[in-house]
């Protein structure tokens, strides 16, 4: 690496972490500081957090409340009976996500946690997934970010949040027992069937968004027939009736009988086919390339250096998808340490790095008068509420609309109005950004009209907006 140790520390803290108020925390060996963070993500902080069985119980209770709402008590509407059911959990989940990131001593691991949660997006925007998103991140993503990609893929695909988010829990094989039973029941009662067939949503997105990539479809790595057969493999993967009995998630009554051929390989009937298929997908060269590209794009540049992508893909294939190996290669590669910061922070990164800069950490998000999720929302993003299964964009262009930048100016102004009198932004700029602080930004911060304006300028400086 050609850059000085001070500059390396600044790059490590901002590009691979979430910013530090003082670069002194990064050791002289910046790469070593990052490497020591590789491992499962920290346990989530905060209170009122449900584990997956607890979240499933909450979902079951909502169903009961909906049934009860058909006969609401006098003076109440049905909507009032069920409204607000998930409110506390959603607030606790969003607070926890931000507070954990703001306070962690292992910001690189936290960034990886965010990266994978976005790669395997589940979103509270879908009604049937609300209440499960926090549990998904804590149980499926956090423990698995530094193991094998296959482990993470299985954990994410079979988690109830994903099964609900991409409709698999409602998908029945066309020749499954449940479809036959339902057809007979419907005929007997002369009404429509409640269950009738397959839903391809999860199968398509696992291929397109989680493993082989859309490019895989364009290059002919998979076809519509593969999607349909994969959906048949996935049929029967539902939510356990008794949330405590986690193992009984696969329901053979809903499963499409017979063998299925996906990507030219035949898979048996039953639940094991999914594990075999995910095992094969995780080893596919297209998956290596897809994961390598996304990782390099997230940390280094919107159009990542091809040499870095090639190297990461090679390490992925050689290590059998060991993510820890991939991260080690990423932080060791010269292309990851270019001095010029190419990436624009997302709103969530901007808000959390601001909290860390002000050493407000957990407190900033625990104080009831500061709506941390609201801050991210006002900047155009919403915590745990990505707009589609593709997750939030990882390209600067998508966050650089005039309005988006204006919203950052507005928010920074408000934060600086509150905090600007108690911090010295000039000193903070030097200690946090080190050699990354450019002459023009330093001059503007130095010449600011008052402490608040100086802090606003620091938060909005290109050196702090980019990483």
């Amino acid at each position: 690496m050609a850059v000085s140790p001070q500059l390396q520390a600044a790059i490590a803290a901002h590009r691979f972490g979430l910013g530090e108020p003082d670069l002194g925390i990064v050791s002289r060996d910046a790469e070593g500081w990052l490497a020591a963070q590789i491992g499962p993500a920290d346990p989530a902080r905060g209170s009122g957090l449900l584990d997956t069985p607890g979240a499933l119980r909450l979902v079951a209770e909502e169903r009961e409340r909906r049934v009860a709402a058909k006969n609401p008590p006098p003076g109440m509407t049905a909507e009032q009976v069920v409204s607000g059911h998930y409110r506390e959990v959603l607030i606790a989940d969003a607070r926890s996500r931000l507070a954990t990131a703001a306070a962690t001593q292992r910001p690189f691991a936290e960034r990886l946690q965010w990266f994978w949660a976005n790669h395997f997006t589940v979103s509270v925007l879908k009604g049937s997934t609300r209440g499960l998103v926090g549990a998904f991140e804590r149980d499926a993503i956090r423990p698995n970010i530094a193991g094998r990609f296959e482990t993470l893929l299985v954990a994410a695909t079979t988690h109830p949040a994903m099964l609900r988010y991409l409709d698999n829990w409602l998908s029945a094989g066309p020749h499954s027992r449940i479809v036959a039973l339902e057809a007979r029941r419907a005929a007997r009662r002369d009404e429509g069937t409640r269950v009738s067939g397959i839903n391809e949503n999860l199968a398509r997105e696992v291929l397109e968004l989680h493993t082989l990539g859309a490019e895989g479809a364009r290059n002919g790595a998979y076809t519509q027939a593969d999607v349909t057969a994969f959906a048949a493999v996935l049929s029967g993967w539902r939510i356990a009736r008794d949330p405590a009995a986690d193992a009984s998630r696969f329901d053979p009554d809903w499963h499409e009988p017979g063998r299925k051929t996906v990507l030219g390989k035949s898979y048996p009937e039953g639940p094991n086919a999914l594990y075999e298929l995910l095992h094969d997908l995780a080893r596919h060269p297209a998956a290596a390339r897809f994961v390598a590209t996304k990782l390099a794009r997230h940390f280094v540049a919107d159009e990542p250096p091809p040499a870095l992508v090639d190297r990461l893909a090679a390490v992925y294939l050689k290590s059998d998808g060991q993510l820890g190996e991939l991260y080690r290669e990423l932080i060791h590669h010269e292309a990851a340490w270019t001095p010029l910061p190419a990436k624009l922070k997302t709103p969530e990164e901007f808000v959390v790095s601001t909290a860390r800069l002000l050493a407000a950490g957990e407190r900033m998000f625990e104080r009831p008068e500061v709506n941390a999720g609201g801050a991210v929302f006002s900047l155009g993003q919403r915590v745990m509420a990505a707009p589609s299964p593709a997750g939030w964009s990882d390209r600067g262009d998508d966050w650089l609309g005039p309005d988006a930048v204006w919203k950052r100016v507005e928010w920074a102004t408000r934060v600086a109005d509150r905090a600007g009198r108690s911090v010295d932004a000039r000193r903070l700029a030097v200690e946090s950004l080190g050699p990354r602080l450019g002459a023009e930004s330093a001059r503007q911060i130095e010449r600011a009209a008052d402490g608040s304006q100086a802090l606003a300028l620091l938060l909005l400086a290109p050196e702090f907006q980019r990483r």
Partner: protein
Amino acid sequence: MNPNDRQRNDRFPQSPARRRLFTAAAAVTGSLAAWPTLTLAGAAGPGTNRLVLVILRGGLDGLGAAPAIGDPDFAAARGPLGQFAAPPLRVDPTFALHPSLVELHAMVGQREAAIVHAVGLPYRERSHFDAQQVLESGGTRPYELSTGWLGRALVASGSKGLALNTTVPLVLRGRADVDTWAPSVLPDPSADLVARLERMYAGDPALATALERARQLRADSPMATQDAAPAGMAASGPRPGAFVTLSRRAAEFLAQANGPQAAVLEIGGWDTHANQTNPNGPLAAGLRQLDLGLAALRAGLAADGAWQRTAVVVVSEFGREVAVNGTLGTDHGTGGVAFLLGGAVQGGRVVADWPGLAKGQRYEGRDLRITTDLRAVLKGVLGDHLKIASRSLDAEVFPDSAKVRPLQLLRG
């Protein structure tokens, strides 16, 4: 008119009365340059046409939005999806509109809206992300182009564009003059801070450009300081959804004499894999929201006489399968529906080379077959409405599309 509107008209120069005066003055002098505020490069004069693009993200179910109730195979092909909570709104013996599309149906009756059916992109796969890339880029394959067709069209016509969004959608990217606008909940930062930021961004062109545009846009917005919902709204009914608010605001920008010539609005939520027959489900609620937004656009532009010069195009990245799936929804398909509305549109009709709904007539046995290339619709509108030369349409706006002939959809 609610009290807030009145207040606004008093405070800001661009009241409707003032704008009418404007138009008259321009007509007398015969030159827009006579008015100093209209000399901005690319500014649209008061008499120029307006184009609104509404993107429905997620893949609108064309047969849900505009059911072909008169097709002999409709009932069998659609099964439970052929049943609506209220009767569909009839357009002609074959076609109707979803019962949620009340305002759009009224516009069809007034010959201000047309339905283009069995329409779609050259793209035939089923990925949202690839299809939206093709829809917005104007190419034939995903990722062959990295700018948008409307962005290139605006460059060709020297016009300004506006995205009612915090970020610029692909369709408007290119080297066009494009602004973004979305409502704010925070107070405006001081002009002094912005001036200092501009100096600080001298070395970062992307941030500098975004800030400069935002600043101008804030100054131009007729309601820049009045972002809160008008008083009395809460008492008189539910708050309008975000799309309705944005539509209303889009109309305000478009009605300004030096406003943008083209605006892009988006609504998501059309990926209806489940629960489509529910009268409060995602499809019905989404269409209601769309309908109210289109009505708000019309009302906002009609007040200033601009509606007569407006064409609104409503499109989605693809349609959905004809048959119901296992969860009372529909899976990704190809052919779908598009809507055209506005005073400039030759409306009151369904434009379709109808392929039929029987299994053998469907694409891959699954989808409504595409018989009209969406680019033919868009080229027709861009050529007639934004006066873009056909050579430019064939080669730059929609590359290699000479074989796709523009459809005549506007009043001649």
